[in-house]
């Protein structure tokens, strides 16, 4: 699965960006979904870099920005699970 995603990425990007294979998101429910939904246009370190300071509402706003403004191909019904993972592992509960 991972292999396939990366192959897909190689086909899309014009220049190869080495290094990002080393990024490891934290294990937990939703991780695969986030990896599949969020790595098409940019590396996953965008998530780690923006932690830990956003609460659930702020992660929700960020994911919505990805979908509405940047046209991320993410299924509406997957958004809550993505936001849940991000808040659990890269956010603050408040």
């Amino acid at each position, binding site marked *: 699965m991972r292999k396939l995603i990366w192959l897909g990425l190689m086909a*899309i*990007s*014009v*220049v190869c*960006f*080495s*290094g*990002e294979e080393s*990024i490891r998101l934290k294990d937990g429910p939703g991780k695969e979904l986030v990896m599949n939904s969020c790595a*098409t*246009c*940019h*590396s996953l*370190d*965008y998530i*780690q*870099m*923006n*932690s*830990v*300071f*956003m609460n659930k509402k*702020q992660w929700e706003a*960020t994911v919505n920005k990805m979908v509405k*403004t*940047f*046209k*991320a*191909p993410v299924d509406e019904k997957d958004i809550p699970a993505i936001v849940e993972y991000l808040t659990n592992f*890269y956010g603050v509960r408040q």
Partner: protein
Amino acid sequence: SAVDPRLLGGAEKELPSGVLEEQVLEALPGKKPLIKKTYRAPNYETPVTYFEEIFTPNEAFFVRYHLSNIPMVDEKTWRLRIGGDAVERPLELSLDDLKKNFEQVEIVALCQCSGNRRGLMKPHVPGVQWGYGAMGNAKWKGVRLKDILNKAGIKANALEVVLNGADGPVLNEPDFVKSIPIWKALDENVILAYEMNDQPLPHWNGFPVRVVVPGWTATYWIKHIVSIDVVSQPYKGFWMATAYRLPLGKFPMVERFTSQETAVNTPITEIVVNSLMLHPRDKQIFRRGQVIEVKGLAWDAGYGIKMVEVSIDGGKTWREAELGKDYGRFSWRQWKYTFKADKKGKYVIMAKATNRIGQTQTFELIWNPAGYHHNVVQRVEINVV
């Protein structure tokens, strides 16, 4: 593999924890190892140790992209297209045309990302979490944008000049396209640069040609420029209308971009007056009787640095630092202040720059949602034993 704090210049005290865990030193092809914020789009910060030099080396110059589709541009086939509804005669120019048919000019100018120091915002705001190094000073060589626009002929109704580079979206993200007001485009200091510090531009800094808008933040310094449109209506793309906005009235602004202002916000334009203390470093230890050199850099939007004041007692008293050589009003300026540490204990060192029109740094952060214009006076604590 955390980044050595000496490369971060104190930013490590304020950056979000995720950044400190995630960022590493990593070299892009043709570059020195820089502080990697994100791999793709490539966002790499310059270690502050390079700021000891007046000109930031090309291989160490920071890299900032929003979108990751970044083609390698071939200078032989590269063409610059000049068009738009407010131009008389659309043009197409090769690199040879630029070099042979227009006057060559050189200017030293600081290139600073609008979001430099975003990672120091309190509370934090989402975006690239830059520390102190999303900036660099260079000597740029190229041709005046004004000369090119005049060759194409500008109609009386020209309002803005729209700048687009060869890089673009991966899927359907809004392309990174920016506009500047026509009066700014006609400013003699705004150039299309094909050399940086006497070398061709590095790929990651806009090869073969980028726009240089001295005094304004780097969002307008479009890399790999391929099209310039003179238009009679405000350009409404996402990166103008929504991104790069400041709340109206919170920051001092002389050069305003009125055709893009709304009732509540305005595009960011000028760089705010600022300074960076490079020495001493936080928590550094000295011996009593030692001569301590406080030094760093100061810059503004091009009005010129009038003075830098240094305090060694946490802001109670201030002394003027000595300014280094003036490389032009858009360059940063080195400064230095020395004192003898004749009593033991803790010293809180601060530096504050003021420009020739009286603008100065703030003591309290002016928080804004996009995290721009952090120019809070730095505080560095040293111990004399």
